[in-house]
C-alpha cells in the first residue's frame, strides 16, 4: 500500500521554559507514542529537521504568548503552574510541572488531529495533490500579485484584495466562530494570490460575522467548475485542531523568498470536496445554520466517501442518516428522530453534502423521483430481504463487534 510510508508526517516537540524533569516526561511519552500511526514523533534536539516537520511548542505560561505571536508552530501548548489562573486565550493547556497522564491525553488528541489527515486524506491526496503554494502558484487559475507591503500592512485580506482591484474575484471572507488565531491573519503584507483566486481567508471569530452558506456554496461550485483547487490559509487547517474532525496538511514556505502571508501564515492547496467538508466542519455546527425549512424533503443523491472520513462515519447515527436520506426523501425532523444522530453530526453531514451539491432540498409538493422503478424479479428480491435479514444483521453486528 502506497500511502502509509510515503505520507508519514514528522512532528517535533519543542520545549521552552520547562525544567529537566518535564523534558524527561515529554521524551518518554514521545517514545511511547512514536509510530503508532503515520506520525513520527520526536523531541526537537537542535539537530537538523526535515523541512516538512510540524513543530509543536510546549511553553511555560510566561513565554507561551510570545511563542504564539512568533508563529511557525502548529500548536503552542501552554504549561501553567498549579494555582495560577488559567490563561483565557490558550486552547491547549497543561499543568506545570507536567503530569504524564495529562500530557499523554493531549498528545493523543494531537495525534488524532495530525494522523487523520495523513492516514486517510493524504493517502488519497498525497504531497502532489496537497501542493504548497510555490509550485502551484504558476497554474493558470491562481497567480500572485505583488503589493507594496507598506500600503497593505494594516489592511485586512479582503481590503487588500479590493485595493488590488480584485473586488469581484470569487473570494470569500469568513469568520469561523471557533477559530482562535487572532494574530495570524490580517493585518498582513507581502503578496496575495488573487486571480479568480478562490481563496478562503479566515479571521478570528466573535465579531458577529457568520459564514454565508449560500454564497459559499456558489463559490465552491465555481471552484469545482473550474476544476481547480481551493487555496486556504494554513491557519484554517492548523486551527481546526480544536475540532475532532480536524486535519492538518503539510505546508512549506514559498521557496522564492518572502512569505505569502504574514505573520506565520501560509497557503495550502486542497481538493474542492475536501474543502467543502472542512468548511462544513467549521460552520455547520447546528441545524439552524442550515436554515432548512421544516417541511422540506431532503434527499441525498450519493453517499459521501466515508472511506476518507473514518472517524466521522463511525459516529452514532451517521451511516443510518446517510442511508435514510439516500433511500427515501425525509423531512429534517423525521431524519433527526429516526437517525438519532447528534445535531452537530447531522449539521456537518448535511452542510458538507449540500456544499458538495449532493443534497437536494425540496418542498413536499415538488416533484422528486427518488426511487428507481423495479422489476418483478427485483421486487421479489426485495421481498426476500423483508423476510428477516434485519434480525441476522443485529446478531452479526454483535458478533463482529460493531
Amino acid at each position, binding site marked *: 500500500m502506497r500511502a502509509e510510508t510515503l505520507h508519514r508526517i514528522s512532528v517535533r516537540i519543542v520545549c521552552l521554559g520547562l525544567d529537566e524533569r518535564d523534558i524527561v516526561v515529554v521524551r518518554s511519552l514521545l517514545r511511547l507514542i512514536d509510530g503508532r500511526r503515520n506520525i513520527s514523533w520526536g523531541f526537537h534536539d537542535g539537530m537538523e529537521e526535515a523541512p516538512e516537520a510540524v513543530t509543536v511548542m510546549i511553553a511555560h505560561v510566561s513565554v507561551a504568548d510570545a511563542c504564539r505571536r512568533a508563529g511557525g508552530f502548529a500548536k503552542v501548548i501552554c504549561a501553567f503552574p498549579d494555582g495560577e489562573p488559567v490563561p483565557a486565550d490558550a486552547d491547549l493547556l497543561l499543568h506545570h510541572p507536567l503530569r504524564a497522564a495529562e500530557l499523554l491525553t493531549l498528545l493523543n488528541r494531537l495525534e488524532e488531529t495530525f494522523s487523520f489527515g495523513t492516514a486517510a486524506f493524504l493517502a488519497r491526496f498525497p504531497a502532489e495533490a496537497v501542493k504548497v503554494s510555490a509550485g502551484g502558484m504558476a497554474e493558470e487559475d491562481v497567480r500572485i500579485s505583488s503589493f507594496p507591503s507598506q500600503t497593505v500592512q494594516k489592511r485586512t485580506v479582503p481590503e487588500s484584495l479590493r485595493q488590488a482591484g480584485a473586488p469581484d474575484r470569487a473570494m470569500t471572507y469568513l469568520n469561523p466562530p471557533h477559530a482562535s488565531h487572532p494574530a495570524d491573519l490580517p493585518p498582513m503584507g507581502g503578496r496575495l494570490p488573487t486571480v479568480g483566486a478562490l481563496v478562503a481567508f479566515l479571521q478570528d471569530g466573535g465579531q458577529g460575522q457568520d459564514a454565508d452558506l449560500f454564497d459559499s456554496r456558489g463559490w465552491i461550485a465555481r471552484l469545482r467548475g473550474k476544476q481547480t483547487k481551493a487555496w486556504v490559509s494554513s491557519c484554517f487547517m492548523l486551527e481546526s485542531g480544536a475540532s475532532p474532525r480536524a486535519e492538518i496538511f503539510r505546508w512549506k514556505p514559498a521557496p522564492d523568498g518572502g512569505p505569502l502571508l504574514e505573520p506565520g501564515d501560509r497557503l495550502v492547496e486542497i481538493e474542492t470536496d475536501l474543502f467543502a467538508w472542512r468548511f462544513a466542519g467549521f460552520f455547520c455546527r447546528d441545524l439552524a445554520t442550515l436554515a432548512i425549512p421544516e417541511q422540506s424533503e431532503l434527499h441525498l443523491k450519493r453517499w459521501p466517501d466515508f472511506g476518507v472520513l473514518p472517524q466521522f*462515519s463511525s459516529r452514532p447515527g451517521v451511516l443510518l442518516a446517510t442511508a435514510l436520506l439516500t433511500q427515501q426523501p425525509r423531512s429534517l425532523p423525521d431524519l433527526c428522530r429516526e437517525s438519532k444522530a447528534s445535531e452537530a453530526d447531522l449539521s456537518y453531514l448535511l452542510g458538507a453534502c449540500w456544499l458538495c451539491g449532493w443534497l437536494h432540498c425540496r418542498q413536499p409538493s415538488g416533484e422528486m423521483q427518488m426511487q428507481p422503478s423495479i422489476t418483478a424479479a427485483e421486487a421479489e428480491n426485495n421481498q426476500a430481504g423483508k423476510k428477516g435479514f434485519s434480525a441476522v444483521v443485529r446478531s452479526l453486528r454483535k458478533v463482529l463487534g460493531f
Partner: protein
Amino acid sequence: MAQEYKLLFAGGMGAGKTTAITAISEIPPVSTDVANSDKKSFDKALTTVTLDYGRITLPSGDRLRLYGIPGQKRFRFMWPMLEQGAMGVVFLADASRPDPLAELEIFFDAFAGILASGRAVLGVGRLPEQHDALNIYIESLRKRDFSIPVFSVDVRQKKGVMLLLDALFTQIEVAEGNYQ
C-alpha cells in the same frame, strides 16, 4: 433449526475478496486458488478460480456463509444461484487494474436485483490520485438507477472491511424499515 444465510463478495482479480473474507471469517477461508496464469495484467502468485468460502456462526446457531465470487466467465452460471436469497453483496474493485469499471459492470448487471434493493456496497482500492476518483463508479451505478454506498477502502485493513459491512448492514436495515 439453524438457518443459513449468504453474504457475497464480488469483484475482479486482486480486488481483495479473499482478504475481506479472511478479515471476518471464523475459519480460514477455503480458497480454490491456483497459480495465476495472467501475470502480465496482474502480478499475483495465486488467484481464486471458483469460489472463496468463509463462515460466521451466530449465537443462535445460525450461520452466515461468505462467498467470494471471481469474474471468470466459465463460472458465471453459478451467480444467479448464489444471488438467490443472499442477504447482500460487497462489490470490490482494484482501481489500478486496466479497466476496473468494465470488470465491475459485469457484476452490476448480473446482480441487478440485489442492487435495486439497496443491499449492496462497493469498496474501491488503489484509487488514482485525482479529484473524486470514485465518480466513474458512482455514475455507472446511477445510470442503472442504483444508489449504494461507494467508498475508497483498503480491505487489507480490517477497518476498511468493517466500514463496508457497517454500511451494508445499515442499508439492509433501512431497506427493511427495521433500524430502530
